[in-house]
């Protein structure tokens, strides 16, 4: 739509104006010596220089726990829908890519009203990565930069920010940004330089193949020894699922109120690594072995989900699972590279 340049002071005033508006404003902030998305009380607290957040911004489109409906025991039910305009500031390209994937997944087949409702109320201000986190490998996954999904994209070019407005929602916010001027050729050149750099250096773990090759690689890898070798140390703790921007499984539970006549149904994050994730009626668990569950996650990322979303690989290289796994076995690059080494592709 349009590309502008603002000084850092002007951008800060813009954030203050957003906070003063009737919207919920969420931005990346320091949490101890790490970073997290949280409600922004002051523009001062926004940290666009962050490396990675502990949890992805997924928690705003698919919260850890959310009520779906209220019901009467043996009676009617009523859908609960969330209504609040929210602005998310500081979404990195790899996380944007993950939200783009979820948008596809939740709107195809059985349209998920709860997800889509929240999503529609969110305006995303993405920002390019300022420095690599210890485990990021977005460069390997082609997600170090991104060209769609956001409403606004902010790139730090040193002295100022280049702000791209991509949608009507983004344009609506632009009216709060005083002092924005059209970006010059120089500014655009500086932004391109940031992109070029990020496409190379956000790569702490290097995938030995193109991501688009993964579905084919996995076709031949079901019986590979690596699953057992790695899963031996797996706690089935699900941390790798919980922190993943593309994991979208949830569990549904009902709770009754004290009147014992009414109640509510909620959903909460689930994870395919958990012991009883695949346990169905009659207590039959069709992925009983740790290695089966361990393998399942990497098949989801590299083969099963891509089949649903035009071949996009459902690992965006954020590296969070690598950090979160206490047993240090969850690194997708290590596993995929191991498969590359020891699998014959006909």
């Amino acid at each position, binding site marked *: 739509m349009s590309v502008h340049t603002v000084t850092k002071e002007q951008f800060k005033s813009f954030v203050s104006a957003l906070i003063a508006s009737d919207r919920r404003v969420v931005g990346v902030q320091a*949490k101890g010596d790490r970073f997290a998305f949280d409600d922004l009380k002051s523009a001062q607290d926004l940290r666009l220089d962050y490396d990675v957040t502990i949890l992805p911004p997924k*928690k705003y489109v698919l919260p850890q726990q959310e009520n779906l409906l209220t019901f009467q025991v043996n009676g009617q039910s009523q859908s609960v829908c969330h209504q609040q305009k929210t602005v998310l500031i500081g979404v990195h390209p790899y996380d944007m890519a993950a939200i783009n994937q979820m948008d596809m997944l939740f709107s195809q087949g059985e349209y998920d009203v709860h997800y889509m409702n929240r999503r529609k109320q969110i305006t995303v201000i993405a920002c390019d990565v300022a420095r690599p986190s210890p485990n990021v490998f977005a460069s390997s996954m082609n997600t170090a930069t991104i060209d769609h999904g956001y409403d606004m994209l902010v790139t730090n070019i040193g002295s100022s920010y280049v702000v791209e407005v991509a949608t009507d929602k983004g344009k609506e916010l632009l009216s709060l940004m005083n002092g924005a001027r059209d970006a010059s050729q120089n500014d655009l050149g500086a932004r391109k330089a940031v992109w070029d750099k990020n496409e190379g250096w956000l790569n702490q773990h290097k995938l030995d193949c193109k991501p688009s090759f993964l579905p084919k690689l996995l076709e031949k890898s079901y019986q590979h020894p690596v699953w057992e070798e790695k899963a031996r140390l797996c*706690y089935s703790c699900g941390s790798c699922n919980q922190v993943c921007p593309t994991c979208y499984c949830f569990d549904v539970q*009902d709770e009754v109120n004290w009147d014992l006549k009414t109640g509510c149904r909620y959903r909460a994050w689930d994870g395919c690594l958990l012991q009883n994730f695949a346990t169905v009626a009659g207590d039959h668990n069709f992925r009983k072995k740790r290695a089966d569950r361990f393998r399942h996650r990497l098949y989801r990322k590299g083969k099963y989900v891509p089949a649903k979303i035009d071949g996009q690989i459902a690992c965006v290289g954020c590296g969070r699972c690598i950090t979160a796994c206490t047993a240090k076995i969850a690194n997708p690059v290590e596993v995929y590279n191991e498969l590359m080494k020891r699998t014959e592709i006909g």
Partner: protein
Amino acid sequence: MTKPRVAIFDFACCEGCQLQIVNLEEDILKLIDVVDVVEWREAMSEQSHEYDIAIIEGSITREEDEHRLEIIRSRAKILIALGACAVIGGVNKMKNNFDFNEVRQCVYGKDGQMQHLNTERTKAVDEVVQVDFKIPGCPINGAEFAQIIRSLLVGKKPFVPDYPVCVECKAKETICRYEYNQICLGPITRAGCGAPCPSAGWRCFGCRGMAENPNVDAAQEVMTLYGLTVDDLKQKMVLFNSK
């Protein structure tokens, strides 16, 4: 509909879990609206031999307590173990790691030889009688207790997580203790508490007992990744997870 009669009994414990029930405040009024509490030493003086649901707090450390428990079991339709002491033996099981004479001497000094201080190996409630439902934690989480009771009252299987604490810890976006090379029992401990300890900067002490099928073998090897040893881990497990 007649209200189910509930009796609450305590054995070897600090009664902290009962206190969590008392602390339910508004919810406690709603609770006594839907059940008929017929015996509860901590909150009332009445006693009764007729009840549908027996809630047992504390662990079993004496022969006469085993008999008392067996009688309660025979009278109750549903028996619930309440809190770490009842569900897994809890802190009381630390005793099982030592010679009992030494333990008595150490705790009571010269009085240690008195007959009524004679106790046996600590047992969890399910080591003595059949337990229908377990509400873990030291102390229990009041909201979880309320949720479980309501589920039982409408005949629905209560939801108690069988997965590790890490799930809830991650959902809270807490920085993991292992990122600072510190031990945490979260990966092998049953969730349901909402991970308050790691969120407050502590480790998980394991008060809810083991998660289903914990990978204890892995834990031994994983410790070395953090410059820790199996003994470091075992030491931390003594508090709530002694045999």
